[in-house]
């Protein structure tokens, strides 16, 4: 189905205001759009790994979710939701459920709860083949507890556990490529996306992920104004820069077949993305040109590799 912007807007809102995410947070924009991809008559069971999203949307006695929500621990959102799915299938098999519409199972996790702490539960759930979607909203550090580095933090970013100083230029290590790890689980649907333009890419991938039978994984960029140190109102501009510099390529892998959904006409130098954020400010001091060069080379290498994977389908 083609993406009709105005029609999609009229679908029911499944995520309410009044949650306690920071002003200008990138995650709620992503969550709203993903949930909008559900058919209005369908239900959802949602679980979230501990993180900003979980602690801010589910503060007793308030819930910002219009669907069933299960409060989960840091490492086991994927296990929780796969268990719920198995229980649902069991009840349906025995004729104990009488409801209209289907029930879909969605887990949300931040990069800390997905790249690091939740990866074993995630890997297990994907391998067992549950009919579920795992959505990682990647903001590149443990933002909830005060911007500690995670394995999703980009190289040379300033965080509170990789602080910039005389001896350190931020995080020394490279960013883990979780989307590729999930591709190598050989599940039916894996995609990497971000909220850019009219959010078409995000909506279509969410729809495919939710309505693909079997496990699906979405990795979505969710900028954090506090941790990335940019003006809160710049969310959409930051998203666009991440994609246009190929720092965050938009692509999907359906049954092992790669498609790069967006190839920028003018691939911008990664510097454009970095200089918009305070966490990379130190890289623009004299003498650090070499570090910028390293980041550019890494981005180029990953982009070229992605293009060659697409070409070799």
């Amino acid at each position: 189905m083609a993406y009709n912007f105005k029609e999609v807007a009229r679908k029911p809102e499944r995520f309410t205001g009044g949650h306690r995410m920071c002003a200008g947070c990138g995650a709620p924009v992503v969550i709203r759009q993903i949930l909008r991809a559900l058919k209005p008559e369908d239900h959802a069971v949602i679980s979230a790994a501990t993180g900003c999203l979980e602690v801010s949307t589910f503060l007793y006695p308030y819930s910002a979710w219009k669907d069933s929500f299960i409060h989960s621990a840091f490492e086991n959102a994927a296990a929780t939701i796969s268990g719920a799915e198995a229980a649902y299938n069991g009840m349906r098999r025995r004729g104990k459920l009488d409801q209209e519409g289907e029930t879909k199972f969605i887990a949300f996790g931040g990069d800390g709860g997905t790249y690091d702490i939740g990866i074993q539960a995630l890997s297990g759930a994907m391998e067992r083949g549950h009919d579920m979607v795992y959505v990682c909203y990647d903001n590149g550090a443990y933002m909830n507890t005060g911007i500690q580095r995670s394995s999703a933090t980009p190289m040379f970013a300033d965080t509170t556990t990789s602080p910039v100083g005389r001896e350190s230029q931020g995080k020394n290590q490279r960013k883990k490529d979780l989307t590729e790890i999930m591709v190598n689980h050989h599940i039916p649907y894996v995609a990497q996306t971000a909220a850019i333009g009219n959010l078409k890419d995000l909506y279509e991938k969410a729809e495919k992920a939710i309505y693909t039978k079997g496990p699906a994984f979405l990795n979505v960029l969710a900028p954090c104004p506090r941790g990335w140190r940019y003006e809160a109102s710049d969310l959409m501009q930051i998203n666009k820069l991440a994609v246009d510099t190929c720092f965050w390529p938009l692509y999907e892998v359906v049954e092992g077949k790669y498609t790069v959904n967006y190839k920028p006409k003018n691939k911008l130098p990664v510097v454009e993305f970095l200089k918009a954020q305070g966490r990379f400010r130190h890289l623009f001091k004299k003498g650090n040109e070499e570090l910028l060069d390293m980041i550019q080379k890494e981005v180029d290498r990953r982009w070229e590799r992605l293009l060659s994977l697409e070409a070799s389908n």
Partner: protein
Amino acid sequence: MSKREEKIYSPDVGWKDITHGGTITTAGNAELFLTGDWRSMKPVWLKDKCKQCLMCYYVCPDTAILIDENGKRIDFNYNHCKGCGICYKVCPFKAIDFVNEI
């Protein structure tokens, strides 16, 4: 709202009044929690300039821009708007002003 629910939302709630296991029985009741007082800057909708493109509707993190039954956007829900200014930056027609709250 039932008596019991009323009690849960008051600051003097005791352990005997809360629900078992901390369950929340009203889905989406975060709407009752008003985050509008976080705001220091405030978006203002300039109705005449608005072309109803709905870009602002999609990018609002706080579901504070709502649409009516005809799919047209209506004024801000200032009860929830935190004043982040994303809508103001994204508007292609400059139909949203961003001003100091007071």
